[in-house]
């Protein structure tokens, strides 16, 4: 108990320090801008030029609707737009839509479209295009297929109005329409129908975004150019994926570069202007160079998921023993090193996601207690059978977490074996519970409880989690009416994970990108967005 309090205290202290740190930073930044005349001048937007982005992974497709892959998304949202989109505070705001109303019985959504939103092919968005896009989304998107079960009909009212009728109350519907994962992108009707369930090919990449698709040389580069007839919104302060977007660059080149050292060298010598996914270990190298600015943003969290379909972790008490055995502060420090790159928080969502974050119900997140772990383990049926911790050795992060976990688990009486695999092998091995007892993996930032991959019931990704309590919470999330009600459900969701331990959260992760100091204004948010930003000189 004593221990727990100390940890809570420490955590609170850390949080305050973190907040103070953030506050100071922004204060000095704005001061600097005010005083320094030359810097003020640098903030004057410059139109033109090519932005060279060192991009770490070659996407399978740029069709943002057909896959949830981050590489697809980060390129895709320059080309495509959705009806509604997240703003900088992760709240749904209209994008292609003008406005919407919900009927009193909460089943009929009437959505009006903005006037004169241009596609890259010269046509304008009409209700027909939106309906065809929704139809495709209902069959190809992982989010859309879920929403599909609630949709009764989608009707055109007039050229700029559609009406979606649901078969029952489903209040997560707006968040599904907004989800930036396998997103409901609006594409021309002919293309949506022609493509059907297959991912869009190069000629079909027609959206409404500020940049349009130009060329893709697989394994080498993806080129986008400015869309001159872009129909911008007017709201300047929304941020995120909506509001006013201005394309300053003539051209954006996403260059596929695998090696972070090449990225850093390339940035130093001006070959690249922005580089993605730099290992946190290189932070000092990056920070000490005046021509390179670090860019950080939230990126989900790391977890250890036990296999709940088999002994020993089918027994809740063994999972509890595991939780008591792990000193997450030590794991996080050993793994991420610099405390700027992790955050000890037990909740299902990130504190930045104000709508979704609840700090309640995470009491046992830092409940490190070796003695309790030993007691629980002794009382259980576990008899020293080897526990296999499986992870992908493509990532240094999950390798380190696994190594520290092994050590801590052995201290309380587990026998542990580490089973590293290369990513492709790892994915295949994951599907069979016989291959592993615990997987250590990271989950990217999610925007709705139904998107939490490590809690999708009865799949390998959740370690065959099966819980009536979680299922009914998801159901009640769907019909929750008010923000307060949702907060209650979120707290209860945290509590459920805390009590049932389907997975053990290690720490929130912060991702590191780097940019050239020639890009004066850049808005850190999930993933890279290159509108409203420019290159000086």
């Amino acid at each position: 108990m004593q221990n727990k309090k100390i940890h809570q205290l420490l955590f609170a202290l850390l949080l305050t320090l973190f907040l103070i740190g953030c506050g100071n930073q922004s204060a000095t930044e704005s001061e600097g801008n005010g005083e320094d005349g030359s810097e003020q001048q640098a903030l004057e937007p410059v139109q033109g030029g090519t932005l060279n982005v060192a991009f770490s992974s070659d996407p399978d497709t740029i069709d943002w609707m057909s896959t949830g892959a981050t590489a697809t998304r980060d390129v895709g949202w320059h080309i495509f737009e959705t009806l509604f989109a997240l703003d900088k505070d992760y709240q749904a705001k209209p994008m292609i839509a003008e406005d919407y109303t919900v009927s009193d019985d909460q089943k009929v959504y009437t959505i009006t479209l903005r006037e004169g939103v241009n596609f890259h092919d010269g046509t304008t968005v009409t209700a027909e295009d939106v309906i065809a896009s929704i139809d495709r989304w209902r069959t190809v998107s992982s989010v859309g297929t879920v929403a599909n079960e609630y949709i009764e009909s989608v009707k055109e009212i007039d050229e700029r109005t559609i009406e979606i009728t649901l078969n029952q109350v489903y209040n997560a519907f707006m968040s599904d329409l907004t989800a930036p994962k396998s997103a409901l992108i609006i594409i021309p009707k002919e293309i949506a129908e022609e493509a059907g369930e297959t991912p869009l090919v190069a000629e079909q990449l027609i959206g409404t975004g500020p940049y349009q698709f130009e060329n893709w040389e697989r394994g080498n580069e993806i080129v986008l150019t400015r869309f001159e007839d872009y129909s911008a919104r007017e709201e300047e302060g929304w941020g995120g994926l909506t509001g006013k977007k201005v394309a300053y660059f003539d051209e954006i080149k996403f260059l596929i570069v695998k090696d972070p050292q090449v990225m850093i060298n390339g940035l130093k010598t001006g070959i690249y202007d922005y580089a993605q996914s730099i290992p946190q270990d290189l932070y000092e190298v990056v920070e000490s160079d005046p021509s390179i600015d670090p860019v950080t943003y939230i990126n989900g969290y790391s977890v250890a998921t036990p296999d709940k379909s088999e002994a020993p972790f089918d027994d809740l008490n063994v999972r509890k023993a595991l939780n008591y055995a792990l000193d997450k502060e030590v794991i996080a420090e050993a793994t991420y090193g610099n405390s700027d790159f992790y955050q000890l928080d037990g909740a299902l969502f990130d504190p930045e996601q104000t709508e979704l974050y609840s700090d309640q119900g995470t009491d046992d997140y830092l409940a490190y207690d070796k003695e309790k772990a030993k007691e629980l383990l002794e009382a259980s049926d576990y008899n020293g059978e080897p526990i296999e911790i499986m992870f992908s050795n493509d990532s240094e992060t999950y390798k380190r977490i696994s190594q520290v976990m092994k050590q801590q688990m052995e201290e309380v009486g587990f026998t542990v074996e580490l089973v590293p695999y290369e990513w492709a092998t790892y994915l295949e091995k994951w599907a069979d519970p016989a291959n592993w007892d615990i997987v250590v993996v990271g989950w990217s930032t999610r925007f709705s409880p139904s998107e939490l991959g490590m809690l999708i019931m009865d799949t390998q990704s959740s370690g065959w989690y099966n819980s009536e309590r979680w299922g009914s919470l998801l159901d009640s999330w769907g019909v929750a009416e008010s923000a307060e009600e949702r907060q209650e459900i979120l707290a209860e969701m945290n509590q459920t994970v805390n009590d049932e331990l389907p997975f053990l959260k290690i720490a929130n992760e912060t991702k590191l990108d780097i940019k050239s100091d020639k890009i004066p204004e850049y808005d850190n948010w999930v993933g890279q967005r290159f509108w409203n930003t420019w290159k000086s000189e």
Partner: protein
Amino acid sequence: MLQYTVRRLVSIIPVMLIVSVIVFLIVHLTPGNPAYLILGEDSSPEAIEQLEAQLGLDKPMVMQFFDWIKNIFTGDLGQSIYSSEPVTQVIMERVGPTFSLMMMSMALTLLIAIPTAIFVVWRRNTVLDPLFTSASLVGASIPEFWFAMLLVLGLGVAIPIFPVAGYVPIAEGFFTWFYHLILPAFVLAAVEIGLIARMLRDGMLEAVNQDYTKTARAKGVKESIVLMKHVFSNALIPTTTVIGVTVAGLLGGTVIIETIFTIPGIGQLLIDSIHRRDYPVIQGVVLFIAAIYVVINLLVDLLYAFLDPRIRYD
């Protein structure tokens, strides 16, 4: 000569067959499954099964193998699982950078190795010789990736003369093409220069005191002509073999160098395809590399026979 050529040509067939069986087996027996990679972490078993059927991965492996072999004879290496483009097209798109790199480093190698070897033999009883021997040993033993990074840091970042990464096709200008390839080509060449120069030096030193060279000198032939005509041309025969092996070996080296300098060539394609378990592309690329290897060896053998008439009558 014709009979010899035909005999060597026919012997290619079993080699390629064995290669294809081995490649197919290694690729398919390696754990990992493209369906899981395409569908990602949250995929359902049904979706996996459906995609496997769509990709033809649910058929028995023997059948998959025969389907593949059958198609190869019609010039069809299959379709990439990842991009759905024909494998031959995917390979052809990547051949340019790799061949540019190979040609350039081969040219560098020969341009440096041959004159150096001749010069060292010419000045054979001086301090130059042990110096050359150790230098070539260092050259041949330096790990390529380390040397590459060193050069990048030195000539790319600290003194920014050369670009640290990237490739420009020759169509966009000869100079930029050349400029972007110098560093990587030199790294690749470094190892081969040491190897070939030493081989040539050893061969020449052996020939330098043979009876026929002594006779030539006794006749009053100038030393430079003795060296070039009698010594060099005799030493060229074993060196040709090494050069042949080297060209093929360069293909292996490009895998590393292409990654370090982000050159979108065959080597990178192979690595990416392995990570993606893009079976048809892996098989296609390995088969392609094997074919190049075999063809180069064939050319070397024929050249050998041309350079040394005794071999033809074997």
